[in-house]
């Protein structure tokens, strides 16, 4: 196998897949850092976002990429609503209760998707798109869009966290919620802003997953494990860590096929998660220890 083949069939798909994982992992890491629990409905919220975009494209005739912001806003609002309805009420209870509640929310969201859109595989656009050749490297425009949008969204998020008042409040709450409360940070508003961002990122992850493959009602749930692996690999609470983690998990999954029988591909994310928790529980970039 020559170098170009390796890049085209292992590294490029790995990076595209990794970008999708990264979008999910950033959301997971934010919930972990600020609200301090594992959010198991993350994958199914991504599915919801993907199908909202699908509805925008097929029913309202919105151009493909314009459906992304619509889906992000809609899913963000749903995320805030879910928080108000289910998680807020459990805030003072042990965290594990909220984690289990999020599993229930995951099943509910998935069922809603199945009731509204059915269980058939759908696509944003009919037909196939062949990649273009960029000096030997074969890329599709949607793959470039996936990676660039991921980088763009993460940069915006970083700027927001560093420069704005609410971003600083979120970081303060992540560092020490009691101290943040005493310093006058309004926890309820921080939670609201967090869910807006997390919901939007979920929708983006779902949209790009659907764009690069198909839309299925189980698509988000099946991405949950690699996304968690990416968040923990990068270091819980570290945005840039989640991005690196996502890309690493994506590339390792694809490259693993060269060394392992392909049925073990899905297990690679598990292996990464395990090894990381044993060897370096803080993650690559020294995040929180769970």
């Amino acid at each position, binding site marked *: *196998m020559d170098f170009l*083949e390796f890049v*085209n*069939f*292992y590294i490029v*798909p*790995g990076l*595209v*897949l990794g970008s*999708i994982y990264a979008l999910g992992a950033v959301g997971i890491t934010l919930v972990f850092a600020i609200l301090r629990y594992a959010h198991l409905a993350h994958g199914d919220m991504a599915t919801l976002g993907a199908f909202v975009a699908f509805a925008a494209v097929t029913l309202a005739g919105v151009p493909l990429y314009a459906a992304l912001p619509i889906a992000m806003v809609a899913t963000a609002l749903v995320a805030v609503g879910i928080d108000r309805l289910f998680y807020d009420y459990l805030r003072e209870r042990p965290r594990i209760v909220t984690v289990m509640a999020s599993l229930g929310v995951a099943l509910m969201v998935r069922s809603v998707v*199945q009731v509204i859109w*059915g*269980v*058939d*595989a*759908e*696509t944003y656009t*009919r*037909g*196939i*798109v*062949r*990649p273009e050749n960029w000096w030997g490297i*074969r890329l*599709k425009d949607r793959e470039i869009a996936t990676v660039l949008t991921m980088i763009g969204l993460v940069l915006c998020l970083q700027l927001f966290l560093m420069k704005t008042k609410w971003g600083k409040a979120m970081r303060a709450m992540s560092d020490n919620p009691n101290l943040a409360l005493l310093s006058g940070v309004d926890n309820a508003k921080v939670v609201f802003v967090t869910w807006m961002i997390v919901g939007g990122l979920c929708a983006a992850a779902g949209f790009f*997953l659907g764009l*690069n*493959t*198909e839309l*299925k*009602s*189980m*698509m988000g749930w*099946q*991405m949950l494990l690699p996304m968690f692996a990416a968040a923990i690999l990068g270091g819980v609470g570290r945005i840039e860590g989640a991005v690196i983690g996502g890309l690493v998990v994506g590339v390792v*999954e*694809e*490259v*693993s*096929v*060269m060394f392992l*029988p*392909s*049925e073990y*591909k*899905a297990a690679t994310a598990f292996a990464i998660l395990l090894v990381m928790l044993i060897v370096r529980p803080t993650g690559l970039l020294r995040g929180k220890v769970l």
Partner: protein
Amino acid sequence: MKKVHLAFAATLLGATAMAAPAHADVKIGLLAGVSGPIAPMAPPMIDAAQLAVQQVNEQGGILDGQKLVTVVGDSACNPQNATDAATKAVNIEGVIAIVGPYCSGAVLAAANSVTVPAGITMITPSGTSPEISRLDDKDLVYRTVPSDDFQGRALARTLLERGTDRVAVAYLNNDYGKGLAEAFKSEFEERGGEITAFAAHEDGKASYRSDLAELAAGGADTLVIFDYGDGAGLTMLRQALENGFFENFVGGDGMKSDAPIKALGAENLTTFTASSPVGETSQALELFNEVFKAAGGDPDAIFVTTSYDATFLAALAIEKAGGDKTKVAEALRSVSDGRGEVILPGEWRKAKELIAAGTDIDYEGAAGDHDFDERGDVPGAYALFKVEDGAFVVDAEMK
């Protein structure tokens, strides 16, 4: 004190027994893969099963004029859901027989952990894995669809006849994919074909490009995919087409789904063929097609004939067994053993009268005669389908 409780409980029991109507409904479980990778196949299959039930109820009902009702459960094409759904059907709903589940892994799990221990007869209309034949089932598991052992071998012979002697094989890592792939492989290699790559994959991944690159490395230009056309098979087909890994694609019955046509476009599927069981042309099949079409169904949809037959057979067996669930399996063999007065699809009234008179009957179904062998299997006929004008049409009969 204890006695008072017992007496109270007994009164309650008596009360419920009296409250129940004199003719309770007769329930059969319909464990359908409503969600999961074969979800799009399920609705027509359920419709076909309901058609059989409707005919039974319109033509005098079952046993003493009771109503036959189906309890639909979602087996979701996976072992856990199938076990849950079967447990609910058997223990809570109290079904007498089960039609389904639809997927092989689901059949194996539900049979092993629920229906065989409970002594309930199960007839699957679409669980095709050779593993089901090998199940230690106390003669309680049957199928109206032929084993993939036949399909895999027939497909191998057909490909070789057409001059395709080098292929790469990708199969879904479950009982269905594995069973089919292994049957294909053994026949293909025995007859001098060469398999350049043989690899399993998991369902639900977003990218199979590295898998495809490994498969293509052997140099074959035909990829045989044993997967579901609405699951990973579709993703794989798309990525193989987009990246030009292979020229020709061949699928098993799971790939004969409308999803690839809908998602990828018929114009991109000119080199795609899929094998699938077909009903042998018979009077029974025509009869079924006519009635099912009139009821608004599509008789060409996959597994509708087997689904109808499984349900009708279950009803016949229950009638013959007099509603005794322990005798259903034995009765099932006797109503379809090739001896006795022929019963065609929909002839419930005739069958009921003959059973009442003690005459032997032999059901000849839409999908075949269903003369079960000792493992509860039926032989089958297959055809290779290609995509033309946005639908699957028969390309060649398979021997």
